[in-house]
């Protein structure tokens, strides 16, 4: 069965995409016996800023009911290092690698994009929804005008597909998607994490060094499905694919996202449950498609009837 999909002008070998922040700079999961880059359509590299960033004070992760909080704070070695030292050693023949672009200013987003434009990454995800940094991130992503400005500034410096990562932490998700699409976004990642916190009752202190963090995992799956459903009418009309994500842990979850309108399936926290998740999901997708007589993944996308 052919699981390859068209996505924002690219052809992905499978609909599965490993999400930024969960899979380092593309090499880490290949240390696991049985893991194959060839099972995924793309690997999105850890969020990258122009200059190196140390990230947040620990604790950075904490388990919560049906999920976890993280506040990594975009620890990364900076764009020049990623381009010079990391990208050349990645196996680009096995899968595609996408950048995840961040910045504290519109200019920084544009400069990072300009540099990645001349690199082997085949697409760029625009992270205007990171909840764990003091500047940029979700502060841009919650405002349609600012979001559009970031997209436009990146659009001006690259022809590579741009995928805008949407925050669930606001009520005007359709407005933001529309503003970003009009500014040149080719696709949307839906959703980033929800902002949350946890408390150490003995110390009476927040558990995370950053106080708040991003909630991921199955706890946010219903929110992700709803956000996809909310924007799907607009994105389908304008042929803008959605990279669905939020607590996908098995084939059933992936199929739910596909039916709701996810043109591609993002895996993040699910990999922490099961690092060999990809093969299992692909098998389940094939079984389902056979049972329901879908000859291509994209025919299943958005097949929801309300």
């Amino acid at each position, binding site marked *: 069965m052919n699981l390859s999909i068209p996505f924002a002008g690219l052809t992905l070998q499978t609909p599965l995409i490993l999400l930024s*922040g*969960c*899979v*380092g700079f593309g090499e*880490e*999961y290949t*240390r*696991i*016996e*049985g893991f194959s880059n060839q099972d995924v359509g793309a690997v999105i590299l*850890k969020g990258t800023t122009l200059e190196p960033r*140390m*990230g947040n004070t*620990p*604790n*950075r*992760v*904490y*388990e*919560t009911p*049906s*999920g*976890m909080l*993280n506040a*990594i704070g975009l*620890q990364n070695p900076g764009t020049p290092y990623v381009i010079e030292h990391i990208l050349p050693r990645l196996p680009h023949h096995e899968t595609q690698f996408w950048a995840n672009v961040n910045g504290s200013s519109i200019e920084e987003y544009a400069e990072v994009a300009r540099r990645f434009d001349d690199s082997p990454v085949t697409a760029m995800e625009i992270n205007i929804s990171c909840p764990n940094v003091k500047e940029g991130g979700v502060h841009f992503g919650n405002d349609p005008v600012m979001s559009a400005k970031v997209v436009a500034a990146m659009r001006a410096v690259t022809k590579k597909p741009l995928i805008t990562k949407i925050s669930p932490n606001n009520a005007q998700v359709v407005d933001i998607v529309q503003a970003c699409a009009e500014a040149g976004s080719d696709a949307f990642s839906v959703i980033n994490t929800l902002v949350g916190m946890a408390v150490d009752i003995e110390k009476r202190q927040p558990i995370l060094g950053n106080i708040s963090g991003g909630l*991921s*995992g199955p706890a946010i799956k219903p929110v992700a499905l709803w956000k996809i459903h909310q924007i799907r009418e607009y994105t389908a009309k304008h042929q803008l694919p959605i990279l669905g994500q939020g607590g996908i842990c098995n084939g059933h979850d992936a199929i739910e996202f596909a039916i709701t309108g996810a043109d591609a399936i993002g895996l993040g*926290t699910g*990999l*922490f*449950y*099961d*690092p*060999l998740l990809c093969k299992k999901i692909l098998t389940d997708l094939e079984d389902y498609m056979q049972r329901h007589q879908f000859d291509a993944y994209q025919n299943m996308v958005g097949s929801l009837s309300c």
Partner: protein
Amino acid sequence: MSNNIHVEDAKLLAISHHEGDQFIMRLHAPVIAAQAKAGQFVHIQVSPERAMRRPISIMFCDPEKGRLDILIKKIGQGTALLAKRQQGESLSLLGPIGKPFDLLDTSKRYILIGGGVGIPPMLAVAQHLKASARMVCFAGSEVPFPFKIRPSTVILPGIPSTAMMGLDVLENWKVPSRLASQQEYFGCFNGFVTELADQYLSALGTTEDCVLLACGPEVMLHAVAKLGQKWQLPTQLSLEAHMACGIGGCAGCVVKTVENGKEYYRRVCVDGPVFDAQVLAAYAG
């Protein structure tokens, strides 16, 4: 490739419960057991419903029988779920993970210092070095030791004669050991494990060839780091952290280091868990 990390469904061969909410699991995990090195850990799935596995040090390893022993203390929801597991059940392990202790130089005298559930990596070191290098192990606990203990037959310099108890398994391997606790357990040194190590070092003719290896609570690791500074000894500390992926993908488990005057956050899972105390911002002198 020997550096590969495996996902292995391990069979729980035995689980024994001990005082102080401690329990020891014996697992059949032949693939991981064949590769594990002293200081490495396994990342254990607590339940298929939980996002974060729990990183647990490997204690004893029997590659021929494919067995691993681990010691866990019930401190939260995840470890409480593990404590309920029954013999014959299966546990998903990810491992072996992490940078092990550097034990290459067998001309050294290794001083192993373990506290509580930090004792197991010291036992892994002892198992690895028992035939090849000199060593001594000091173990401290404020709850009863979850291991068989007995009077040591090896005389150690500087150790008060009242502190005569050692770990049975180490005695069997002819590795000298002594125990410390503030709970006035019979035959144990009444104080900190690091005081015991300090007294031993003070009585040694020369300490030039000594290396400190330690795992335990943060307060103990600070005392070990100070001991290393006092005696100017290479000191390797094994750390723990809240950990998500366990393979270096998420940078959730970091510790601050200072290397060549620059600060970094290094991942405890794959850059550690064993670090040179000199690079750790919280422990360096």
